[in-house]
């Protein structure tokens, strides 16, 4: 929960509500980007950004190296699969 997972923003789907599509290790889902946008970096300019995603919210922009290191750490801690499964099965009654 507290480690987050890095992903790359591939599309800004709803600039007004600050929603974007992110790719996390091949899994795509919608996230909220309110915490990483401001006047100098508006929602529209976020495509291509690497971000650290905590429970569906981008909390900070990171560089690609940092993202790769964090993904490797999550893999080694055994958290990676759990996190991706949680994303895939979120909200399903049988999950």
């Amino acid at each position: 929960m507290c480690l987050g997972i890095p992903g790359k923003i591939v599309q800004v789907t709803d600039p007004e509500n600050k929603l974007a599509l992110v790719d996390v290790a091949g899994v795509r889902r919608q996230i909220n980007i309110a915490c990483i946008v401001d006047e100098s970096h508006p929602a529209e300019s976020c495509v291509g950004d690497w971000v650290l995603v905590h429970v569906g919210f981008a909390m900070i922009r990171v560089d690609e190296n940092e993202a790769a290191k964090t993904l490797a750490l999550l893999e080694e801690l055994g958290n990676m699969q759990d996190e991706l499964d949680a994303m895939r099965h979120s909200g399903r009654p049988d999950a």
Partner: protein
Amino acid sequence: MKYVDEFRDPGKAASLIKRIEELARKIDLGQARPLHIMEVCGGHTHTIFRYGIKQMLPEAMELVHGPGCPVCVLPMGRVDDCVALAEHPEVIFATFGDAMRVPGSKKSLLQARAEGADVRMVYSPLDALDLARRHPAREVVFFGLGFETTMPSTALTLLQAEREGIRNFSLFCNHITIIPTIKAILESPDLELDGFIGPGHVSMIIGMQPYRFIAEQYQKPLVITGFEPLDILQGIWMVLKQLAEGRHEIENQYQRIVPEEGNRTAQDAVNRVFELREFFEWRGLGSIDHSGVRVRKEYAWYDAERRFSIPNLKIADPKACECGDVLKGIIKPRECKVFGTSCTPETPLGALMVSSEGACAAYYTYGRTEIAKPGV
């Protein structure tokens, strides 16, 4: 991925360990016991065990595993409240997966679901809001859990629900805040701590300022630290360096992620939606003043505690559990009478055995075998 290999540079690790040994030998605080450094965050606890960092450290110092695992400190009475909410026939109870197995006094959420309650595991509060959109005839209650790292996401989701006029969504708020908790630990009469490894991602939100009192009033060093094994070694070295030089400051080893002022958008959302409770009950630690938040009355409609009647009973921890003493660093997990016998990750009695970030679960999983040092 060459940068990963570089970061895990075994040479760097060896050099840090050597410098840690030298400093630990030099530091003399006039105490009969080894130096005690607490890592506050459960994410750090997990890394420390996974990479065998404990075994690399000199005998002159010990790591104490702190309370920073939100699932672990959830009191039994609150789990019972979750179950009671989930058992309302109109309710869809949405929770992070980590909370499913935490034992209540009668059952866990997992057991409640097996008995017919509609409990859904969600990855994000956004997904709980989406359940409310898709099931307008049902009441979706999201179980908000965690420290400042997850608090902004809950606040922003609630604001989104308000913007869209979604009325069948509410929050059972169990968010907790780290600063009063550290303060309670520092005020503990049996405290035996010399410094802190500060949480990384909580600090990314709150920044450095809220920690200043630890240095100023309690004269203890704290170093905000990242989650890589090398980050943790460096954080430990920075705490020891302060102790060796007689300093007590708030330092930031994790500058690549933690800005000094934190994240303003996240702080604003949290302040808009939440206010401090007078006190909050912790499993193992008892009641801590101002350590939890609740929904402000301006957003009362979205507060499950106002919308539903919940038992709200205080349930004592199981007698055999010594989670509180483990959390305060007074005993080690193995010294608890039920550790590994009646309390295991499969059938946890105490909360510290539930999550992979809990000290007892980490001891149980990694503590029995020596783990190879990184790069060796």
